[in-house]
């Protein structure tokens, strides 16, 4: 520790910092605030802390995990969030209702259409607007496309976190095609800013429809073919099966929703449980699996892709003619009140709770993000597992740090 060299280096922290040299321990510099914190930051015999992130090849953004290790085994885990906090909710309070749509866009940046959908629905409830049916169908169509893109990306990341290099790029083929398609429809590839209060920004155009038609003819086969590399791979299946198992009761207690909950056998889907938009008119199944482990969560998303393709097919067949925007004044001043709206995003229940005080800016916009809810169970799921499994469990929950940190 006292490596004295004749030529002092500018990188030597002793020159700039007057603190004692030592290995950096991830213990916070303040006294423990809770009992849990006091218990976690006390090392037992033969244990050590290791800091995973915020700069780490596979923490899905800027999540920091403090692992308490005993050899390779994870004794306990503490996810530290907030590195990507941008104060979106506060920004929304100082923007007018139309502006908030673009403010919430980069939350769950993998599936941005759902970010717009929930607040837009809440505002529509505040305003008592009826959205034209064509606009609702366009919303469902584009959102389901976005869901497929998100799930395709998830499968690639899953494999990448287990050390497979190729699947991520193969799944990017599908994602890129969809993203280009949505780019043709909305004008942007990632943060669409497409949904409007009372409708959508633009009608379906030729570029989008021809791309969609091309893609739909081969989508099912191509997605299946791309994933044969993983689904039948012995190493992949053996690492995922029985890992991070959770039963339905515990998952409910931890407030899980979405594919992660359905992988434990509970067929809870906002699209069916509290139908919004035109989902009631559409025919689709809610795939479930009973195992509740990482493999179930992975395979369930594959089934969901197929159901999404069914929904898109029906949307294309039933798409009515008509306007795409409701008649609304340009400056919106909803009556004072509160409204809640939830959508089924690729990660679970994505909800917005808007409070209006009668001005043209929301008094409060609360965003409920499923990634944050799922992330708090990582510690339970990986207890007693190995370091390598931490990444697998993390990836199988599919958190997006933009949504977690807001």
């Amino acid at each position: 520790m006292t490596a004295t060299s004749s030529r002092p280096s500018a990188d030597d922290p002793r020159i700039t910092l007057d603190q004692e040299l030592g290995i950096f321990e991830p213990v916070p510099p303040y006294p423990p605030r809770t009992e849990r914190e006091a218990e976690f930051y006390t090392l037992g015999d033969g244990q050590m802390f290791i800091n995973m992130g915020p700069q780490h090849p596979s923490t899905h953004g800027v999540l920091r995990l403090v692992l308490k290790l005993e050899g390779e085994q994870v004794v306990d885990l503490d996810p530290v969030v907030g590195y990507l906090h941008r104060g979106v909710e506060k920004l929304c309070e100082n923007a007018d209702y139309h502006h908030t749509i673009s403010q919430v866009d980069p939350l769950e940046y993998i599936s941005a259409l759902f970010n717009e959908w929930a607040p837009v629905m809440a505002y529509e409830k505040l305003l008592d607007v009826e959205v034209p049916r064509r606009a609702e169908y366009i919303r469902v169509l584009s959102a389901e496309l976005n869901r497929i893109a998100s799930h395709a990306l998830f499968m690639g990341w899953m494999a990448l976190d287990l050390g497979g290099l190729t699947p991520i790029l193969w799944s990017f083929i599908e994602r890129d095609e969809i993203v280009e398609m949505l780019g043709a429809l909305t004008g942007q590839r990632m943060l669409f800013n497409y949904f409007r209060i009372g409708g959508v920004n633009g009608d379906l155009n030729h570029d989008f429809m021809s791309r969609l038609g091309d893609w739909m003819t081969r989508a099912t086969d191509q997605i299946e073919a791309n994933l044969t590399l993983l689904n039948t791979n012995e190493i992949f299946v053996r690492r995922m099966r029985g890992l991070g198992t959770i039963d339905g009761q515990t998952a409910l207690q931890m407030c899980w929703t979405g594919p992660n909950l359905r992988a434990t056998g509970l067929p809870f889907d906002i699209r069916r449980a509290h139908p919004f938009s035109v989902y009631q008119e559409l025919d689709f199944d809610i795939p479930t699996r009973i195992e509740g482990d990482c493999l179930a969560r992975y395979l369930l998303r594959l089934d969901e892709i197929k159901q999404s393709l069914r929904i898109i097919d029906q949307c294309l067949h039933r798409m009515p003619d008509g306007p795409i925007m409701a008649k609304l004044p340009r400056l919106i001043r909803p009556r004072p009140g509160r409204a809640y709206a939830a959508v089924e995003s690729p990660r679970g229940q994505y909800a917005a709770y808007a409070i209006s005080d009668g001005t043209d800016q929301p008094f409060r916009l609360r965003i409920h993000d499923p990634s944050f809810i799922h992330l708090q169970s990582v510690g339970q799921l990986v207890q007693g597992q190995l370091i390598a499994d931490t990444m697998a469990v993390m990836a199988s929950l599919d958190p997006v740090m933009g949504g977690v940190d807001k």
Partner: protein
Amino acid sequence: MTFVARTWNRLTIPGRVLLGLFLLGGLLTGALIALIIFSEPILELLGANLPLVRFVGAATVVLLMTIPTAFLIIYMEMKIIALMNLRLGPDRVGPFGSLLSVVHGLKVLMKEDFTPTGADAPVFTLAPVVTYLASVMTLLVIPFAPGLFGQDMNIALLYFFAISGLGVVGLLMGGWSSFNKYSLLGGLRSAAQVISYEVPLVLSVVGLLILAGTMSLNQLVLNQAGWFTDWYIWQQPLGFLIFFIAATAEANRTPFDLTEADSEIVAGFATEYSGMRFGFFFFAEYVNVFIVSALTVTLFFGGWNAPFPFPEIALAFDPGSLGIALLILVAVVPVVGTLILAMPFYLLRSSMPFWQALVIGFVLFNIVAVAAVLGWAFVSLEWVAGLLWFMLKTYTFVFIFVWMRGTLPRVRIDQLMGFAWKWLLPASLLNLFVTAGAVVLVRELGA
């Protein structure tokens, strides 16, 4: 001194190049003259210590060989995995990006060579050297072609396993001295992994040794001469499978690349390394891939033997017999060949200027000439043919390693250890006993 510096500064760039060339030429001429004058005692000295000279020469050649080998394999890996990922891969530097790994090599040379505070500096510096030297030293015993090997030892195989086991010491040193928990985990993982897989690796070739009755790699290759059915793979299929899996783990390659699992422990033992010290680790990894492939080929796939006995083609033509005509040929053939090869392009494409046709003709003539020389060497020089077959087989296995890297995910540490001790070790013991029993049985029946 100022005079020299001023003169040098006044020179133009071509002038500096010319001056440099002039000085170099002078030095070389002087060295040549000195060599000629003192040729007799030098030759005497070399002749008296021939084995030592041969060893030093072989060691130098092998050390120099590792760098282009590593460059080639790194390029292969980048390009092949890119094609498997439906990407283009490197395509900027050189034709098809083939010089990119050279640029990578220059890059690691120019980066800052950083030692983290708190690291155990001597051990930290020594670790890449140990790892790199371990892989280079194993190359000494591999027979590349008839007569083309560093040292023909009667215990070559034992030497190989002993030295390649040293590599893990370097990884452990790097992991321990880095003052980083990821490095520590990587180093300990590599120690556990390599020591576990050493056991089935060595046991899997014992069956082959019983069959061959020798540990000399050269003799092993000679034993497999003839048709491809004489290769040991047909007598030791299980041994080959175990050897290949264990060798993959020894070389730290996917799916057993836990020591540098980037999604778990960042870069394992190499997390704190930068610059050329990291470059040594990097080179050692790819040289290890080559070595493991080369040893697989030597043991199980006939080494430098052709898969079938080549028909003897006796060249009736001896260039030496031409005398002065050879000189005239050397002067005339390139010109005539270039013109002949350029003619079709010039005559059949009216839009092509003559100089373009000449350039095409010149390139084509070079290709033809190189092919002709290589063909002549392949037919008349035994070691060229042997080297060609050896490299062909070895790079097939290198390709398989790259293919596995592009396809397979990584196993977990407990699965890795369980696989070694629960499956590979019993299987290699079974292979050993069955082979020994069969050999005894054949000997009894034959006697």
